[in-house]
């Protein structure tokens, strides 16, 4: 049988595991695909490659898909996704000196896990009194879960991310050096860059993204809408291969083997000592302690993780509105329907025998413990979906949700790069 050629772009991060394992273990071939993988150095280059057809699919930040669907950035409406590659997986890490300062400023608060940003707020207040410059935190891209998680965590402790600290975008491969020489004071990035900071003695991880929002979406498999429309069968083959691979990667007994693949030079090239801790969820350092067991640090398949929840898209969009990146009159449901495609997911998953949710939206934040999803073709075990501050997100009433936040952008930070015809002025 002839295999359909397909090119997938990816970034140098541990959560490429499902794609990497599908390639290395012959899963793509088994589903009739001849897949070439291409590694990119920046999200912008990956996005351009997908937008112009240089690649067919991409390991993409979930907010980049939502941004495109919302018409933000240079490829408005071009991207869509029917597959969540993983949940959780990021963490916030600070320099050793900031960690000590937090311990000194608020020793009691530092003892409570998950760690809030209130010790950091105490440090910021002291620095403010001493007229010291604001602390700088790095993340990887304006439209990223890293940015929204960092902003959520900071603002939950009363720190305005646009006023009280400086946020900068930095290549993940540089954040470790930047932290060690004091260029930045902390960052929110994916793995292996948090573990690497601890392993090389330059920083401490404070909190993982799964503790900020349990089981929030991280990377998606993005394709062009035109690809989804015209190459439907190939798209389904790709999703089925990834589902099969994700189910394998997610098994605890396979995580070391997956880490071994991901640590290879073609993927992260980072070595098992930096990759294994996050992929196995064992021996993770967080908030100054070794957390022996964080099995949900990376979720690749369990909890119907691969299902592209439109409520996830709407939460991401709510953060874009909260921080002034999208207009307040955004039509949430409409953008979400362009961004995530649960129907295509079901079409791929059901023939393979995977249970699927029968709904596209769920209230986020209501479950603090594991629960059973019954709005599904058969009941599915789900992990918690709590937010660190206990808020409930109703995807059908975003305005009320956003009105509950004191800290938010009061004016638009929209970039003027959407397509506007210059002839409009000539009218």
């Amino acid at each position: 049988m002839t295999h359909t050629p397909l090119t997938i772009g990816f970034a140098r991060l541990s959560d490429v595991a499902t794609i990497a394992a599908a390639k290395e273990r012959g899963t793509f071939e088994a589903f009739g695909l001849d897949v070439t993988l291409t590694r990119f150095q920046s999200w912008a280059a990956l996005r351009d490659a997908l937008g112009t057809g240089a690649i067919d699919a991409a390991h993409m930040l979930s907010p980049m898909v939502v941004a495109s669907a919302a018409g933000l950035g240079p490829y408005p409406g071009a991207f869509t996704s029917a597959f969540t590659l993983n949940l959780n997986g990021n963490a916030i890490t600070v320099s050793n000196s900031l960690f000590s300062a937090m311990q000194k400023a608020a020793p009691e608060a530092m003892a409570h896990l998950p760690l809030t940003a209130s010790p950091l707020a105490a440090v910021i207040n002291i620095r403010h009194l001493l007229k010291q410059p604001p602390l700088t935190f790095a993340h990887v891209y304006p439209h990223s879960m890293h940015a929204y998680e960092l902003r959520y965590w900071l603002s939950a402790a009363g720190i305005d991310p646009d006023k009280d600290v400086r946020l900068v975008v930095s290549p993940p491969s540089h954040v470790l050096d930047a932290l060690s020489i004091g260029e930045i004071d902390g960052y929110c990035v994916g793995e292996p860059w948090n573990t690497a900071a601890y392993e090389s003695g330059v920083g401490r991880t404070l909190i993982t993204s799964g503790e900020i929002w349990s089981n929030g979406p991280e990377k998606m498999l993005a394709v062009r809408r035109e690809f989804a429309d015209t190459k439907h069968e190939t798209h389904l083959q790709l999703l089925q291969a990834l589902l099969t691979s994700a189910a394998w990667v997610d098994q605890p007994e396979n995580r070391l083997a997956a880490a071994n693949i991901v640590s290879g030079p073609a993927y992260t090239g980072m070595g098992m000592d930096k990759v294994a801790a996050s992929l196995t969820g064992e021996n993770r350092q967080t908030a100054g302690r070794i957390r022996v067991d964080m099995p949900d640090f990376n979720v690749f398949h369990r909890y119907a993780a691969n299902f592209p929840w439109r409520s996830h898209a709407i939460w991401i969009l709510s953060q874009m509105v909260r921080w002034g990146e999208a207009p307040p009159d955004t039509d949430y449901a409409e953008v979400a329907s362009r961004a995530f495609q649960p129907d295509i997911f079901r079409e791929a998953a059901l023939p393979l025998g995977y249970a699927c949710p029968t709904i596209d939206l769920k209230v986020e934040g209501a479950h603090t413990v594991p629960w059973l999803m019954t709005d599904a073709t058969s009941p599915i075990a789900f992990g918690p979906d709590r937010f660190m501050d206990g808020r409930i997100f109703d995807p059908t009433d975003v305005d009320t949700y956003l009105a509950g936040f004191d800290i938010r952008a009061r004016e638009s930070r929209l970039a003027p790069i959407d397509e506007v015809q210059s002839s409009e002025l000539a009218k």
Partner: protein
Amino acid sequence: MKSTGASDDRDPLRQAGESRPAAAAVPLRVLIIDDDLDRARQVEDGLSGHAAVHLATSIHGRPLLDLIASVQPDVIIMDCNSPDRDTIESLRLVAQSNPKPIVMFVEEEGSDQMTAAIEAGVSAYVIDGLTPKRVRPLIQTAIARFKVMDGLQSELRKTRDDLAARKVIERAKGLLMQRQGMTEEQAFKAMRDMSQKQGKPLKSVAENVIAILDMIGDKQDTEGT
């Protein structure tokens, strides 16, 4: 050294009596972001005598943003595959500071896709095969294109909800049509060109047009193009 060597002959403001000196004395500020020092020097050579060139080699993230803030480059030149692209993107995606025209280059052959990517709206230009001779014209093209695609859009975005600004532009256009005998399209194009040449927002160009045409009153009625 002029930043645009454009002739003012067809500038309706000149015809209307404007004698504004071109913003010519300030050299073009160029920032080259490239970890490959030899390649960066090649670009610098191509610009010698025509621009104030700053090199950003092996600096990333925060110090790179600080450098951009202090240099305030007119154009940024960088590799398409640079890991610093997302840092530069952050200047564009979220309007915390002014976006800059960006010239991007790719080294390898068969870069059609990246060319297409850039033409799709990244507001940048590709140099494949960096010869010093090609650097300067490409930068000029990129800046001109940026000002049309990005600067005007950005101006439009700001003025779209600002009726006052819009009225100023409308009024200036009307005056140019009435006094200079231009068509609506010519009047708009004239102001847009001035906006590009002077690097000024359309609104301030329109204000100049109104001020000057008001000042010279009806005397120039017959001098339209």
